[in-house]
């Protein structure tokens, strides 16, 4: 499968500070990709590089095989909803749809109208008067109705209440099911990502910590607990992601594709929560950031 987003040594620097560095990822098509990381990890920077709102300081990025915002045709293939789901406060819902129809060659007016009705938006209401959830639905509708191949969403549900969040994700998944759109969305709400994402990119301290298909990641990580042991004493094929020790006991989160045979360990599977938190709390610049074993699994 061809990659929808391919970055090679991608970096963005503001003055002396790198917002994102050494980012090398390849995201396969047809996925719903979760981009996770603490605030300031570089999520928004990566998304803005992907839509062409920012230019890279180093490295390259290709989206759907083209240069971000390189041509009108390229712009038409990518949908983007920025953080806080911005809309024009003074324009009504129906004016937003007309604007969308003017600006986009492949505008799907039927789809836009249907979604507006489905979510109970009054076409004459000004966007500034909408609730957070309704505004998010309007912004998503605009991005979807241009019928992009790739949809990029920056923290789309962060500011929504649980019900609006659920409705937003339902609407999003309906589009994925109906049109086969690829989605890259950033979030720090792991519970939501767990439902919708089948591919994960974990960013922390401006670097990619881990990336891969969720099923493969969950199947290759284990939590081991048992008598206290030095991590150096573990087999070479078990990479330690996280460790904690008491005077008697050791607990490791390890990555390995081989069976764990040591009978001393109690072995538990990991959840997406465990996995994300373990990679997020790794000290910056550790060996894992560039470890060959941590590249995309296809």
């Amino acid at each position: 499968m061809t990659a929808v987003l391919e970055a090679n040594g991608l970096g963005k620097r503001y003055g002396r500070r790198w917002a994102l560095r050494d980012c090398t990822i390849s995201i396969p098509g047809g996925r719903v990709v979760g981009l996770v990381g603490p605030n300031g990890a570089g999520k928004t920077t990566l998304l803005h590089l992907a839509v062409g709102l920012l230019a890279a300081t180093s490295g390259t990025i290709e989206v759907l095989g083209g240069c971000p915002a390189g041509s009108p045709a390229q712009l038409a293939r990518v949908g983007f909803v920025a953080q806080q789901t911005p809309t024009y406060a003074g324009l009504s819902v129906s004016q937003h749809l007309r604007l969308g129809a003017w600006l986009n060659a492949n505008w799907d007016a039927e789809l836009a109208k249907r979604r507006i009705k489905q979510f109970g938006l009054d076409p004459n209401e000004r966007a500034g008067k909408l609730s957070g959830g309704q505004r998010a639905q309007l912004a998503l509708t605009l991005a979807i109705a241009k019928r992009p191949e790739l949809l990029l969403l920056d923290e789309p549900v962060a500011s929504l209440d649980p019900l609006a969040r659920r409705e937003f994700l339902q609407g999003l998944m309906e589009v994925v099911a109906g049109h086969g759109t690829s989605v890259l969305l950033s979030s720090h709400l792991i519970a939501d990502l767990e439902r919708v994402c089948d591919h994960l990119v974990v960013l922390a301290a401006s670097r990619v910590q881990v990336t891969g298909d969720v099923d493969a990641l969950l199947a290759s990580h284990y939590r081991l607990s048992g008598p206290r042991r030095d991590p150096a004493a573990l087999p070479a094929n078990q990479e330690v992601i996280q460790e904690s020790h008491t005077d008697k006991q050791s607990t490791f989160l390890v990555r390995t594709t081989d069976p764990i045979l040591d009978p001393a360990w109690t072995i538990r599977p990991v959840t997406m929560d465990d996995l994300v938190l373990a990679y997020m709390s790794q000290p910056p610049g550790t060996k894992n950031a560039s470890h060959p074993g941590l590249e995309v699994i296809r």
Partner: protein
Amino acid sequence: MIEFQLDTASGVATYLQLVQQVHDALRLGLLEPGDQLPTAQQVVIKLAINPNTVLKAYRDLEREGLVRARPGQGTFITRSLPGTDPGTQARFLAAMTDWLLSARAEGLGPDDIEAIYRTAVRSCFAEGVA
């Protein structure tokens, strides 16, 4: 038609939960050959989950030979799970109840009994597994 539920706290992978719910529905007779499963789109809208997850569950069921996807129509049940005969079920339930009562009389609690049960199941069904 059955409706899927999701238990996010269970730690069981979402697609496996869907597979298990179809298994359960077949065992309980809620689903029979010819019945249609909800479309991926319907499941996705209800549960707000990734459509690929639903398709993966349906592919698993298809590989087991329990369902078949008919392009443009949907996914249909093709056979039921070999359910246990009700008489046999009742007999084992009675025997198990007797056993549990005698265990309780000896002072064993539910936790002790569950530990014994799990060990017994493991040694009984783990043959051939390294």
